């Protein structure tokens, strides 16, 4: 027990730095993954066939390949495709690596969010759309004011799951040298020659983060149960 506390105290700066990176990566992935997930869901339900095809292929491909492969594909693939993220250091954080890590995770999470949002929207009774359109509401307002708020109730629990998955999955971007929590555990193991301690500490930190998210989402779900 003592040895755990010793490691935690001794390397607290490293651990906090790693936790910060994990939180930043997760926050951006959750935010943009959600935005693009909603857009992708709209494409998948679109009347325009190419949009539907694109969304279908995208979702199937991303869901059918390992996230680790996707991370490497983005990391090595982008420069090869001529997309050069300028090498930029902010303090001791390598922004270009961070960006390609976040991008890979966003690409991944978009596919899952797309399915969650689509299922949620389609679970709303079609009568709601007709009721709104019959009153003279525009299709856009029907979607945003009538359908989406109701879909949210169905979407939120699955979305919460996805957010937690993102936080855990973000540990995989350590393979491209992003100094997140997982990377920190490796680093500490290398310095201290203790494999167990940093891993257990990092696991606890991951758990605390995901529990916080769960707690917040449970509160939001409760508030949405008014009707």
């Amino acid at each position, binding site marked *: 027990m003592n040895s755990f506390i010793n490691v935690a105290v001794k390397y607290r700066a490293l651990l906090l730095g790693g936790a910060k990176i994990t939180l930043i990566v997760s926050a951006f992935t959750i935010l943009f993954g959600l935005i693009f997930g909603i857009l992708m869901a709209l494409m998948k339900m679109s009347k325009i066939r190419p949009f539907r095809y694109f969304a279908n292929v995208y979702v199937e491909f991303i869901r059918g390949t390992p996230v680790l492969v996707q991370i490497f594909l983005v990391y090595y693939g982008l420069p090869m495709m001529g997309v050069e993220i300028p090498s930029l250091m902010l303090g001791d954080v390598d922004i270009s690596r961070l960006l390609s890590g976040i991008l890979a995770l966003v690409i991944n999470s978009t596919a899952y969010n797309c399915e969650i949002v689509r299922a949620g929207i389609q679970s709303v*009774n079609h*009568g*709601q759309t*007709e*009721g*709104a*359109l*019959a*009153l*003279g*509401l*525009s299709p856009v*307002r029907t979607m945003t*004011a*009538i359908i989406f*708020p*109701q879909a949210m*109730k169905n979407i939120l629990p699955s979305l919460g799951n996805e957010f937690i998955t993102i936080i855990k999955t973000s540990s995989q971007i350590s393979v491209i040298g992003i100094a997140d929590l997982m990377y920190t555990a490796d680093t500490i193991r290398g310095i201290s020659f203790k494999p167990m301690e940093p891993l257990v500490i990092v696991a606890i930190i991951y758990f605390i983060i995901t529990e916080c998210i769960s707690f917040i989402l449970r509160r939001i779900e409760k508030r949405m149960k*008014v*009707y």
Partner: protein
Amino acid sequence: MAETEVILTIRNLTKNYNTLSVLKKIDLDVRKGEVIAIIGPSGSGKSTFLRCINAMEQVSGGSIEFHGTQIVKQKNLQQIRAEIGMVFQHFNLFPHMTVLKNITYAPMKIRKTPREEAEKSAMELLRKVGLEDKSGVYPDTLSGGQQQRVAIARALAMKPEILLFDEPTSALDPEMVGEVLNVMKKLATTGMTMLVVTHEMGFAREVADKVAFMDEGRIMEYGSPKQVFEETENERVKAFLRKML
């Protein structure tokens, strides 16, 4: 009834689902203040016909003119839908809005009615349908009959010129049919133009000015309730009425 202005003109209306022809050349004139009951066996195309009028269904051919303007999928569709109210079999109230907001939402967003005014007239409508004490609750806490009365109030809040009723009492428990029909009867006496698809023969007979009997996608018989219910020579109408009455 004195001949009033024709506000809805339907000519040669057809509707196909792939190769299945649901509506076959329907003609109908709707005059201001008329209450027209559309009756007929299930699958005769009554609801489809009604739903074509506010473009809930896309028509396959023919024309529907509202005050001389074609109703088609185009820019005027939203404006026309605002003038043509619809009451659905399953109410379709918005469950995430209170009764009051259900009624005020469309007038505030589309007519740009100020909130105070919208809420005042909503309360008035709720009084008319006997639910003024329910303004603050969510629809799910109401009975079917109450929900349908709210739905009527919601449609009326847009001050439509015509109100379409798509089997408004078919999804209700028998003991609640009466309260909804009463609201509709009261509405009919105010000069509201109403098209009512219904299986309530009593309503068609007592309240409607005109009755349209539909079968196999056509209007087979059209006239006053007396003409359709008592004087018809059409065997199909007779057979249907024998079963219903």
